[in-house]
């Protein structure tokens, strides 16, 4: 049986990798220069986290792969990212709401992983944590500003939240590997994060005047590698060069 930590490392690494790839598409297109720079910088941080997690996964898997080969030579069903991060960019409201939901989950997850019994999991998480705290502050203040902004900005943020909601549940889906990791005190059960994450969202909603959807119908399957159609398009673009010219270098 394979080391369950691979499951955790892929889950963390793939979430960061896919969201970094998605955000980077805004480079040169964001509504304001400040947001353009912010999205590129957040992507850069997430790419750094993906490199650490995927490098860790490759190291414990011992199959001669590295972070790059894991990023560029796996197919959709081998990816372990949540369904939220693979939602299309659509517009700035959707991109920002997706980032905000991710940041709230990510910060909570990293706080818990920083206490992991596994030294390397704890170290990577502590490193990422200081950066993600900054991400969350930015997306939170923007969501509050736009939610409590004009009628148009409020409606668009609320629509984005409603549209993304069922995919957000993907972060809280448990698997057999998670049970093993929980027993080893390596990582928390994904579902156990939901109450505190929801509470934080509701707190911010007081200021943003947005409303957290009540439905708890979640799109599932990402932990088994069942993804939405859009991940295929993301990978096609991201992996094209390495698939066409394998091992090409800068």
């Amino acid at each position, binding site marked *: 049986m394979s080391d369950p930590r691979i499951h955790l490392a892929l889950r963390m690494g793939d979430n960061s990798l896919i969201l970094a790839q998605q955000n980077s598409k805004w480079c040169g297109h964001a509504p304001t*220069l*400040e947001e353009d*720079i*912010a999205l*590129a*910088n*957040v*992507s*850069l*941080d*997430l*790419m*750094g*986290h993906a*490199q*650490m997690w995927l490098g860790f996964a490759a190291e414990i898997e011992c199959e001669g792969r590295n972070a790059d080969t894991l990023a560029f030579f796996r197919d959709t069903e081998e990816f372990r990212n949540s369904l939220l991060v693979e939602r299309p960019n659509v517009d700035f409201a959707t991109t920002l709401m997706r980032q905000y939901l991710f940041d709230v989950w990510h910060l909570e997850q990293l706080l818990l992983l920083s206490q992991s019994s596994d030294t390397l999991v704890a*170290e*990577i998480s*502590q*490193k*990422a*944590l*200081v*950066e993600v705290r*900054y991400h969350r*502050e*930015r997306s939170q203040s923007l969501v509050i500003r736009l939610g409590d902004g004009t009628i148009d900005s409020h409606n668009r943020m609320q629509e984005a939240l409603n549209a993304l909601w069922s995919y957000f549940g993907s972060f809280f889906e448990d698997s057999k590997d998670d049970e093993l990791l929980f027993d080893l005190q390596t990582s928390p059960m994904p579902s156990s994060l939901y109450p505190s994450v929801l509470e934080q969202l509701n707190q911010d909603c007081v200021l943003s005047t947005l409303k957290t959807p009540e439905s708890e119908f979640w799109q599932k399957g990402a932990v088994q590698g069942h993804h939405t159609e859009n991940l295929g398009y993301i990978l096609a673009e991201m992996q094209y060069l390495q698939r066409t010219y394998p091992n090409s270098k800068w």
Partner: protein
Amino acid sequence: MDVLTVKSIVESVPDPEIPVLTLGDLGVIRGVHERDDGFEIHVTPTYSGCPATRVINEMISEALLSAHIEKFTIKKVLSPVWSTQWISESGKAKLEEYGIAPPNPGAKGPKSCPQCKSTRVSEISAFGSTPCQALWRCQECLEPFNYFKCL
């Protein structure tokens, strides 16, 4: 060549993005050890995705090679995690003089404008020209300036 000499060579290498700071000022050199097969230099990254990390390693190699030290390895260490608290006091003073407001722990932004020292400052952008900086503006002298983000 002893460990201390190697350490001082490595610590005096300038930061590629903010050359008034040395790697020693920045606090990213976490140790130099003598092993059987040469020196082992422990370096910690500032930001995990920072493109300067690779350049830093190249510059360390260059500095050591020009001091005729050929047997060494550079090892990346993550812990203890780098934060702006690792920047030395002299490093902070150099930043200020260079026109970058130094990190101001416990506050939302810089203490004052690095140009005219006015405390009437406001944020333009939470992110700036490099991963470690944010863009601020002085209300007094109206100059924009970089702020070294507090991590």
